[in-house]
């Protein structure tokens, strides 16, 4: 019997019970859709992580003060890095691109006759552009001099500049952050949203200005919570870190038992996030695999019912010349057609579902193209695996007994 004839006979068999066939494929549909969506969701999570890493800048080391300063009186001189330590780090550590620190606040912004509410104000240092690989489009960035004197200067993000001043050049004009009137000294290039950070919708000012005007000194004073150090390359990371370790303990006057700071590299963040995603993905893969197996059991169940129901038909076909192999192939084909149809519909549902999630859901999804042939193949395998037993049972029937079956 030819492939097409077998397929045709199998199709006729399935069309005998349309609703039942559809319900049987539902298990596979859900399984395949699950595989595709799960992979799309975890790929989306990975893409988010990659973006966040880019947002941090390349080969970044973060130095965090590990001592919580609760306020005056609780170790006022205790180990914490301040703005004045940054030049020391920059000048004494070899193999780095830059050092910067950030202190953020959020203020209403007035300028060019327009008011924008709740704009992120990033207090930072001259090293910021080196650390983040970010360029100034017009004018200049915050300088060390600005920080030394806590100058009232501001560098606008691209979108902020557009919204406040449109096409006119904002450099030299003034902008009011909260109650502080600053002179605009520069506008950044367009960078867009990276990770969760909208670079273009921020204003950059000297970190000392933020400490002086916006942050209540009781909650941190001039102490830096995080210092970003950007190494020249991945290879020098370890060396830079050991240099930092020594230098910072000198600055802070601490020792290895309680250094007063911790260092984190983006690698360790990547590793941590990656292992979380991997756990997540493994879990999802298992869920998807289990639902495929459940779908397969559904197929096997219905095929066994079908073989019993159609015992007489099997007997007749055998009497008319069907070999055991022909009977086996017919039922195997039915199971495979069921699972492949389920696979096809499942792919459509999975791709559509991933898209819907991305567009209207809170989760980012990235369709993994290999998941389509993968899940389709898995569906075919499920059909063959779970169809084999019922098909073999059908082929084993004795034509005399089968013909007499009521």
């Amino acid at each position, binding site marked *: 019997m030819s492939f097409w004839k077998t397929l045709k006979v199998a199709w006729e068999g399935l069309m005998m019970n349309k609703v039942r066939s559809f319900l049987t494929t539902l298990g596979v549909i859900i399984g395949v859709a699950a595989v595709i969506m799960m992979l799309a969701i975890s790929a989306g999570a990975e893409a988010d992580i990659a973006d966040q890493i880019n947002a941090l800048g390349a080969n970044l080391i973060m130095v965090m003060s590990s001592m919580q300063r609760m306020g005056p009186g609780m170790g006022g001189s205790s180990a914490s890095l301040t703005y004045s330590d940054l030049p020391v780090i920059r000048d004494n550590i070899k193999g780095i691109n830059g050092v910067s620190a950030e202190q953020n606040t959020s203020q209403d912004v007035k300028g060019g006759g327009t008011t924008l509410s709740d704009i992120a104000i990033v207090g930072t240092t001259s090293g910021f552009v080196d650390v983040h690989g970010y360029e100034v489009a017009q004018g200049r960035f915050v300088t060390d001099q600005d920080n030394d004197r806590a100058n009232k200067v501001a560098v606008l993000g691209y979108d902020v500049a557009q919204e406040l001043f449109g096409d006119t050049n904002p450099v030299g004009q003034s902008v009011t952050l909260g109650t502080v009137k600053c002179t605009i000294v520069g506008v950044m290039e367009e960078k867009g949203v990276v990770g969760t950070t909208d670079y273009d919708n921020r204003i950059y000012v000297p970190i000392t200005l933020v400490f002086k005007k916006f942050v209540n000194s009781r909650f941190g004073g001039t102490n830096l919570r995080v210092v970003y150090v950007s190494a020249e390359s991945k290879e020098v990371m370890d060396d830079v870190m050991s240099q930092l370790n020594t230098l910072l303990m000198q600055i802070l006057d601490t020792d290895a038992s309680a250094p007063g700071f911790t260092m984190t590299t983006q690698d360790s963040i990547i590793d941590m996030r990656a292992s979380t995603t991997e756990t997540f993905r493994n879990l999802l893969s298992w869920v998807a695999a289990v639902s495929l197996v459940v779908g397969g059991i559904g197929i096997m169940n219905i095929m066994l019912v079908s073989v019993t129901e159609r015992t007489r038909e099997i007997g*007749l076909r055998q009497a008319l010349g069907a*070999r055991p192999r022909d009977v086996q192939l017919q039922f195997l084909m039915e199971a495979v057609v069921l699972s492949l149809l389920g696979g096809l519909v499942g792919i459509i549902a999975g791709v559509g579902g991933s898209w819907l999630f991305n567009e209207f859901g809170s989760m980012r999804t990235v369709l993994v193209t290999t998941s389509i042939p993968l899940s389709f193949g898995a569906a075919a395998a499920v059909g063959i695996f779970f169809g084999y037993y019922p098909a073999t049972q059908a082929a084993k029937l004795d034509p005399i007994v089968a013909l007499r079956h009521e």
Partner: protein
Amino acid sequence: MMNDTLIEVHGLTKVYGKGTIAVEALRGIDAAVQKGEFVAIMGPSGSGKSTLMNILGCLDRPTDGSYILDGEDVSRLSKNELARVRNRKIGFIFQSYNLLPRLDAIKNVMLPLLYNGENGKSEAEHRQQATAALELVGLGERMHHKPNELSGGQQQRVAIARALINDPAIILADEPTGNLDTRSAEDIMQILHQLHTNGATIVMVTHELDIAEHAERVIYLRDGEIISDKEHASRIAHLHNGDKR
């Protein structure tokens, strides 16, 4: 004359079960059927006529003895080879028609062609063949009716057309009129009679004497043995009536 012998069985036995519970359904059957003969097999229930029919139809293999069908010893063939023999050489007619309810008449008739891979004919030729077969049994007008839209007699005629489709060496009919009213039964017998006149070899199992009267020769079985052969139905009425009691 050997060329004209279509079926030849020697010492055919069939034993079901083993040891003390063994039942001998056939105890050494010797018989031959010539080409073009119309033979009826009769006998009370339990006489072994169904078993004989199953073996003749290559649905079952004998425990012992030989069975030569159309010059080929089929008594020791494998399951796959038996399937081929059934497909090419035997046309079955069953008491309960055994049509597939989801297929229309012409598709039912074409069913055996599905398993006849090497005939090299196209789908169109198959349809032509099936149409011709249905016309032969007088159902040219109802080719696209499904079994539930046909009367019992019509369904059995579809089954006859199906039996003829592979141009078999022999037609085996198992109680072909068992489920039919007298009138339809008469129609069916007319068709079988016509086929016989045109040269077909027919072996038919029946328990009705008036149906057996259509055959030229009756083989009468009792307890797995032939007790009468080569007689016309009218002359075995005493056997039949005796067994009925």
